[in-house]
């Protein structure tokens, strides 16, 4: 069950080291604080799961935010009704997002291509609108679902007295906020990454890649692609549900805007920016976008003045004035520019860039020894 090809094993170990040492290597970038580290791990998981659907089968879903939202709500309700234990909350997140994905997938997968995208988008928008207004008794609408002091918490209260302050989610005493929360999310991310690796290298994964290259041909050769598609759609939805559950575990509040179409769009951006179909690419894309959203957006003119202090006075002001349009509230602009550049020059995302640099070195080395042969194209 834990057998994977040696190449994948190396990737996994390297990935684990990178993820688990994030608090150290992100410090110089100003991103090493628990809230953002948790977001990095959670959105990486979301992107990995999304890539299973979009990267392997080419089906572009615009509705994954709905599963994220369902997972969040399920986790918070599990906190409210049963226990502050994150494992229990995650089980409910998996269960409900799975059922939800099954229902949406069953209908949406009757169509492919752009019609599939529009259907998923429609379902996600419907879920968002429902959560925002009609389902307010369950979701608490705009104000979001929160813990209160009067929550039943049936299981917890059998063992401990009701405290005077709000409880925090904890895994048998280990708090899920702060750095311990980050390591919890990081370990779930590693598990998710490992499963994604297994799926990609399995016969089931081959089948999905076959669907991507030509679904009709798959049908003609006698495979019924529908069950495969539905399975991977549900798996991908569960990944999103787990990510949503983790969002609630590290910060027990679920808001409707998690289900908005912009959240789904962001996920597509992450995947394309990093590299569709690769395992690492979407993770890098997720980290970049979250970094931009949280750190880049907080740079203001005084930060820039500090940054460009080495320039002569008058020139410094000009540079700061120009560059301030691209940071702070202008972070969307920078992200957009970067996205355009990546899509135009590196259609395979950042991973393609990395691969090109890799082949460049390889070719140079090969030329010295013998004539270079065509470089193999790895699947990340």
């Amino acid at each position: 069950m834990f057998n994977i090809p040696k190449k994948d094993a190396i990737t996994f170990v390297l990935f684990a080291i990178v993820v688990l040492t994030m608090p150290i290597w992100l410090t110089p970038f100003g991103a090493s604080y628990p809230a953002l580290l948790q977001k990095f791990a959670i959105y990486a998981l979301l992107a990995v799961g999304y890539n299973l659907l979009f990267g392997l089968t080419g089906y572009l879903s615009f509705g994954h935010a709905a599963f994220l939202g369902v997972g969040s709500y399920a986790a918070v309700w599990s906190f409210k009704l049963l226990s502050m234990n994150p494992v229990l909350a995650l089980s409910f997140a998996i269960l409900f997002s799975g059922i939800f994905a099954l229902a949406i997938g069953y209908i949406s997968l009757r169509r492919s291509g752009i019609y599939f995208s529009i259907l998923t988008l429609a379902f996600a928008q419907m879920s968002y609108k429902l959560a925002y207004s009609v389902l307010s008794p369950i979701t608490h609408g705009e104000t979001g679902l929160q813990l209160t002091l009067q929550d039943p918490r049936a299981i917890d209260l059998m063992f401990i007295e009701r405290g005077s302050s709000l409880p925090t989610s904890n895994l048998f005493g280990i708090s899920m906020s702060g750095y311990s929360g980050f390591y919890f999310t990081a370990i779930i991310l590693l598990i998710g990454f490992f499963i994604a690796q297994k799926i990609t290298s399995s016969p089931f994964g081959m089948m999905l890649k076959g669907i991507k290259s030509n679904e009709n041909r798959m049908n003609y050769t006698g495979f019924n692609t529908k069950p495969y598609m539905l399975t991977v759609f549900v798996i991908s939805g569960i990944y999103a549900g787990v990510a949503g559950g983790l969002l609630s575990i590290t910060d027990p509040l679920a808001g409707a805007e998690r289900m908005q179409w912009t959240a789904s769009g962001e996920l597509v951006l992450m995947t394309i920016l990093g590299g569709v179909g690769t395992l690492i690419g979407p993770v890098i894309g997720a980290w970049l976008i979250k970094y931009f959203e949280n750190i880049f957006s907080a740079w203001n003119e005084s930060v820039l003045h500090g940054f460009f202090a080495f320039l002569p006075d008058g020139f410094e002001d000009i540079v700061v004035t120009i560059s301030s349009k691209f940071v702070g509230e202008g972070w969307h602009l920078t992200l957009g520019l970067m996205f355009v550049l990546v899509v135009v020059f590196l259609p395979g995302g950042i991973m393609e860039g990395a691969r090109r640099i890799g082949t460049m070195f390889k070719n140079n080395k090969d030329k010295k020894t013998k004539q270079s042969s065509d470089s193999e194209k790895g699947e990340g």
Partner: protein
Amino acid sequence: MSNIKNGVNRRKVLKGATAGIITAGVAPTIFTKGAWAQEFRNDPKGGDVILGFNVPQTGPYSDEGADELRAYTLAVKHLNGEGDGGMLNTMQPSNLKGNGILGQKVTYVTGDTQTKSDAARDSARRMIERDGALIITGGSSSGVAVAVQALCQEMGTIFMAGLTHSDDTTGKDKKRYGFRHFFNTYMTGAALAPVLKDEYGSDRVAYHLTSDYNWGYTQQRAIKDATEAIGWRTEKTVLTPVGQGDFSQYITPFLNSGADVLILNHYGKDMVNSLTQSIQFGLKDRQVNGKNVEIVVPLFSRLMAQGAGDNIKGILGSANWNWSLQDEGSKAFVKSFGAEYGFPPSMAAHTCYVQTLLYADACERAGTLYPPEVIKALEGHKFDGMGNGATEYRAEDHQCFKDVLVVRGNANPTSQFDLLEVVQEVPRAQVEYDASIFGGELGPYEVS
């Protein structure tokens, strides 16, 4: 390759690595936690006091957010003794000396709420966990205020709410660490109803269009209760989606409903659109039941009035504050804000400015930055000279009680900012209510 050997090694390495890192990460927090009772998160320990300004810089309320940020930077200047001092000179009682807070210089960090709960909590957590912010303040939406307030309660960080008008902020979702200076929908209803009775009589039929979210519901409930108490009948209440551009499908049924007052429980761009389209439908020129059709917009702000242009002329609503007020505090604030930025402040800017000063003053009175003591200093605090007359921070729900303004769209504006005229300053006694009617619980002073 031998899979088994490979797998075992990998797992061993992983196990060791994670176990090691978890211990390294958790151990310090266990040892340092609760060493001294007086130790609290982000204690500057004699260094600069850092305030976290969490305002919408992008999204539908970015205009309000930009104005809030202007007010905050002005407040920081005044606290540090720069500029003309603004309300520091009119605030009573005041313990502020213009030398920062407790003699420590005041600096600030900013974050963008995007008017989304998640984004707002992210930026608040960044400011608390990374930047060392001692308090979080700001915001222009009740959803965000409630979400950030809950976070601040968990974190043990004081939250001074910005513009938030829903009853929930200091009602069912009130928190020990959250404070609101702004008024709420209940007060709007209580202040507006008598004026409506004087202006439009007690025999009226109302028709509500309401934004389909939490604030809209509480606003509609407050106005409905208050107008029915003066003898009005409510014909129908209709929910409209937030961000709706075209309201004509909602205005047409009103024309045939037999109602003669249209109440628009909308805010921001929604209000600008629904009001503009109502005027374009010729509502103001119509007569129903032998009376002129009237439009009421319960929550007014100058920034919205600017968006709606001529259409607001003669429309009644309520406001927390307006720059045209002539008391000493308002004049001092408008003067220093105008000198700094060249135009008068909005009510969002006013409430944020006041909140910052109130927090600083409470620290001075408590003689410490330790949050539970500062909270006790704010609870039940009575003050004056901040633009709203005599005001009290009620201890039971952390809501400020003060006079409420009923305003009308100015028919003959003398400048592009002179858009609202104050019809009446409704005295505090008339808008006061029992703290227990909305439920909720404040929670503890001490959080671990």
